[in-house]
């Protein structure tokens, strides 16, 4: 059953055109991952308008390959320049950069890429087996179950996100409100438009992503004063092979990291805590914990395995439930809707070639990806030597093009600029941005699920607790929601004041 479908998927993924698309996607993705201000989420958002005329399977392969590339690319800047391209590569800098300064950059990068690949492969194999099962279960879900899952998604941002839980809540609500602006398709009424014609079209999540993550990130990085002074890696086949000979020593770290990554990853916002957790575990179980932070190869292996494993795992809820686990997955989900596909469990029965093509392309994409980054590291690292006065305007122009292309409308470019400033201020005040984007993408779906549930129950909220599956999910969601209130209480009860190792910069 499963294997047959996978073979079908490979027939889709291994056509010359789709392989070419994967190579293009990975190249662009790695460049985007290396560049400051352009991460996976807004890279995918900018490229999305270009995929409107493509067949959906090739389109999703392009976007996922871009995502793999961005995940690999994040490690390059972390190790060579001590600049984490993404929040989940922060832990990689701890030992990656010291290694690079000791002249072992090539070894560190080989270890990072290999770990990423191992973590990804682990999650892909699990997805291959679990996705059809989960989709099968989800087929029996009704609106109350879907709304309960949405509730769980957003409450886990509040409960597990770290930082001020109220600010996470505000971010989520703002996203939902932005999604509600414009025409209400159910009743045909205009909401929150106040008679302004431009507001009638509502806010597009692509524009929000480009503004919040793209422009906002550039403003932040210039404020921090970027200086790219890094070691050039001397990458060659000999170093790669030598490093591969050492890596089997860390088998336990690989396995632990991959499990942590997968477990954390299919919940929203999981990649960053997963990478820190994996690093912390590796340090605790190491025979030389004192070497961590001073250039221990294991300190690169642990977070990279977990981060990439989590990044791939975030795709699982997206393809099976239609609920994305990360902002990048959220943008892809938006893409699915634009390409005319209905995200959710029905995809497995109605568009098997799409789903299995996507899953198969995860294998091919990551294999191509790891080979490409290993071979072309110096090229990608050289991008950061392009003078800043050229890079900055280039990124801004690319963002503007991406925002305009969504609806061919100038107002979106203005929104992008406004979202950029909002993103900059929010980031500085510790309002998390990922939940806002997720809520903006899922807003209409969540509202419809809520409406249909309430219609089913004649307006009684009991529908979310009386049905067994919905009830169980709601219970977990409420637990996460109450966690910020309960945790300090519990800690006082146990008489400890020790803070948990909450990751810095986990947004």
């Amino acid at each position: 059953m499963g294997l047959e479908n996978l073979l079908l998927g490979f027939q889709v993924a291994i056509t010359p055109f789709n392989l070419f698309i994967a190579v293009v996607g990975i190249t662009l993705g790695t460049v985007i991952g290396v560049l400051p201000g352009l991460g996976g989420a807004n890279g995918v958002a900018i490229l999305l308008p270009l995929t409107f005329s493509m067949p959906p399977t090739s389109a999703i392969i392009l976007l996922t390959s871009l995502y793999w590339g961005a995940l690999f690319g994040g490690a390059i800047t972390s190790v060579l320049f001590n600049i984490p391209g993404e929040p989940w590569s922060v832990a990689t800098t701890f030992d990656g950069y010291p290694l690079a300064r000791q002249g072992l950059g090539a070894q560190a990068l080989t270890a990072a890429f290999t770990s990423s690949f191992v973590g990804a492969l682990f999650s892909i194999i699990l997805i291959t087996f679990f996705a059809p099962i989960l989709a099968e279960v989800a087929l029996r879900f009704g609106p109350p179950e879907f709304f309960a899952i949405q509730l769980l998604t957003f409450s886990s941002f509040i409960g597990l996100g770290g930082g001020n839980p109220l600010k996470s809540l505000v971010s989520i609500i703002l996203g939902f409100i932005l999604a509600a602006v414009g025409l209400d398709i159910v009743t045909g009424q205009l909401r929150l438009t106040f008679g302004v014609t431009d507001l009638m079209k509502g806010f597009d999540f692509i524009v929000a992503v480009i503004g919040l993550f793209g422009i906002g990130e550039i403003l932040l990085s210039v404020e921090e004063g970027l200086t790219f002074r890094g070691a050039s890696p001397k990458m060659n086949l000999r170093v790669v092979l030598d490093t591969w000979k050492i890596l089997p020593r860390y088998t336990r770290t690989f396995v632990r990291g991959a499990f942590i990554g997968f477990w954390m990853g299919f919940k929203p916002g999981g990649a960053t805590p997963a990478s820190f957790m994996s690093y912390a575990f590796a340090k605790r179980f190491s025979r030389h914990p004192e070497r961590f932070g001073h250039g221990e190869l294991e300190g690169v292996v642990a977070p990279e395995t977990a981060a990439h494993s989590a990044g791939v795992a975030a795709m699982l809820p997206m393809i099976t439930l239609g609920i994305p686990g990360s902002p990048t997955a959220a943008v892809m989900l938006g893409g699915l809707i634009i390409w005319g596909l209905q995200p959710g469990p029905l995809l497995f029965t109605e568009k098997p070639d799409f789903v299995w093509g996507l899953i198969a392309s995860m294998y091919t994409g990551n294999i191509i990806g790891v080979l490409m980054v290993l071979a072309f590291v110096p090229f990608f690292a050289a991008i950061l030597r392009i003078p800043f006065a050229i890079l900055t305007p280039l990124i801004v122009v690319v963002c503007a093009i991406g925002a305009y292309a969504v609806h061919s409308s100038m107002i979106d470019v203005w929104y992008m600029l406004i979202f950029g400033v909002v993103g900059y201020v929010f980031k500085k005040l510790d309002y998390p941005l990922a939940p806002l984007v997720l809520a903006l993408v899922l807003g209409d779906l969540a509202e419809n699920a809520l409406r249909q549930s309430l219609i089913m129950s004649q307006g009684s909220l009991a529908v979310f607790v009386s049905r067994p599956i919905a009830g169980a999910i709601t219970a977990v969601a409420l637990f996460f929601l109450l966690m910020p209130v309960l945790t300090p209480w519990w800690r006082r009860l146990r008489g400890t004041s020790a803070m948990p190792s909450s990751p810095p910069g986990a947004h």
Partner: protein
Amino acid sequence: MTRTVDLVTATAILILGIVVVADSLRLGAGWGGDGPKSGFFPFWLGAILVLSAAVLVIQAWRRGARVPFVSKEKLRPVLIVLLPALGLVVATQWIGLYAASALYIGGYMRGVGAHRWLTVVLVAVGIPIVTFLVFEQWFLVPMPKGPLEAWLGY
């Protein structure tokens, strides 16, 4: 002060929440003939927003960090990125994206980076041409165009 910005942001969110609640009440936030009315979902969103923002205002008032939000010397580089970007958007409306981005990239490279004129001209003219080929010719995604493109016959 970060505290001031925190206060202003939370207050702005609070006001937004009130606006949302008001508009939802106008649409009807209760139960219609065949299900929740249009204002039902936004009403509760607005209500939660008002409550959370109110607490955030109090939090910011009581324990907002009294450190500068952006120091003077750091505000400069931020504005050096933001203001030209604003210029790019304004110019795009008048002369189209390609001409505007050529001016923007060129101006930025010369003004901020002090690059040689030859490099400036090559990059500032080359990038829009590549963009034009990729978007208009290859992917058929139209960008805003102005008098220059009209003169060239596009």
